[in-house]
């Protein structure tokens, strides 16, 4: 589903963010991406959503080479990728309903379909009763769940999350992770970047570990990985 082939990314000024990364996440697979801050987790996710382009190597989604996607096609690629951010990235001036409806409005869905899908997504994250609230009336965990509802509302085949539990306590973090498991169980490929190793250890999923831009481990366990501190 997501395949990296010898991908390197260097930023201007010679900072080497990623070096010769190769991995393949199968359709319907759920995986964690871990490493220190600055190890290149965010850069890796940005390469998938084409917020950055690799300096060398190729990124494939569903067999399509992303280097062949031109500027005008980027929005259509992003519609296939649900993205969840540490700081939620909700629109403060819009209601929860409108925030979640955004991807559907952009794709031009009709009002009826929008309402049905948004209600389904909000129901899934347990916030249906707060559809008319504004983001700043919700707690951090609830805001994160709104972000997740927005990411899954158009049922994308890929879900990317960058530190989705960064600001949440362990109990809430686990709740959020359970949500990801639910989406994964219906066939969505999920890639979660996090440095919460305790959480990863409990969940038993494939873990990709990055250290200074290199993939140092690709396997089930992360806690014993070289150079990764818990």
């Amino acid at each position, binding site marked *: 589903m997501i395949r990296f082939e010898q991908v390197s990314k260097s930023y201007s000024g010679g900072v080497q963010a990623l070096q010769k990364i190769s991995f393949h996440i199968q359709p319907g697979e759920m995986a964690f991406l871990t490493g220190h801050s600055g190890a290149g987790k965010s850069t890796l996710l940005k390469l998938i959503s084409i917020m950055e382009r690799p300096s060398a190597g190729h990124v494939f989604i569903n067999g399509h080479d992303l280097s062949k996607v031109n500027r005008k096609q980027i929005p259509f690629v992003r*519609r296939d990728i649900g993205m969840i951010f540490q700081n939620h990235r909700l629109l403060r001036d819009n209601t929860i309903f409108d925030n979640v409806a955004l991807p559907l409005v952009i794709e031009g869905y009709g009002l009826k379909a929008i309402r049905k899908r948004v209600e389904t997504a909000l129901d899934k994250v347990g916030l249906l009763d707060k559809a008319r609230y504004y983001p700043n009336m919700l707690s951090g965990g609830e805001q994160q769940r709104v972000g997740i509802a927005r990411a899954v509302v158009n049922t994308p085949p890929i879900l990317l999350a960058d530190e989705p539990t960064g600001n949440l306590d362990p109990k809430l973090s686990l709740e959020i992770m359970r949500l990801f498991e639910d989406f994964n169980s219906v066939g969505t490929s999920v890639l979660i970047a996090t440095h919460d190793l305790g959480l990863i250890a409990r969940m038993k999923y494939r873990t990709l570990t990055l250290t200074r831009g290199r993939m140092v481990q690709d396997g089930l366990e992360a806690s014993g990985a070289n150079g990764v501190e818990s």
Partner: protein
Amino acid sequence: MSLLFKQRGAAGANQRKLGLFAKVIAFFVGNIRHWLAALGDIWRDPIPSILTVAVLGVSLTLPSIMYVVAKNAQSVEQHWQSAAEISLFLHTDLSEKQLQTFIKQVELHPKVEKVVFVSNEQALSEFEQLSGFGDALSLLDSNPLPNVLIVVPLADYAFASPAADLLTEFEQMREVEFGKLDIEWLRRLNAVLNLIKDTMGSLGLLLCISVVLIVGNTIRLSIINRKEEIEVLKLVGATDGFIQRPFLFTGLWYGFFGGLIAWLSIELMLYYLSGSIVTIADLYQSDFRLAGLSVSEMINLLLMSMGLGLSGSYLVVRKQILLIEPDSSI
């Protein structure tokens, strides 16, 4: 419409069966929605919008006033075009028959549109009425005024130099004592009017450019203000066109309100000025009335200001939205 996942449509996730008619409807509904949403955005954050619209209103008022002035000047000028008449003062010793023959002769001249004969009695009584010397004139034992033949040349010969040629031709005739054609002042008036028109044209152009720039700058600022929102829109897969549309509509609205203010201020100004214009016109014994903007001119003004607003926003929106890319933390 999935770029990477051909099967997505078939799986039903993105399946949308829309006929052409439904698509057209969706297009219009979508645009109307954006159009109203832009109005809503102006309403929610009114202070910068009001300031912008006020500046636009003033900027548009100036060229519109110039237009109104030019329009009225033109009507006055047309009124004065009839001043391109040749007055022929005839010898007083002509008999009635000679007079009639002469009038006929001039009337049939190929360069003459029409003639008006003002007899010396007519002229005297008119003079008595207008000058207020009625009593004094009755002391005169004979009418000192000559018969006058007013010759209106055909439109082609009404200009300065052919009219002057015509005048010399008539002055050669023995019935004519002398002719008069006040052409210099007409030439000067024309030149001055042309100068005023050209000045207004260039000033109007400058002010229209300033409208475009003002709208452009305001839209640019509002795009920068909404950077975060635009980033989110880009992240969830909005095309540039989708992001641009509300800003284009905002420009359109700015133009509309600016035009409305311009129109209102012109109407107010005309109302304010009309009193003094009437007084002046009365003093000059003219029935001149200040003409405002007609309905079609008003619609043109609104359309033009909306066009200027739209082009102002179009100028900056594309480039500015390209500049904003989501990159902080994904």
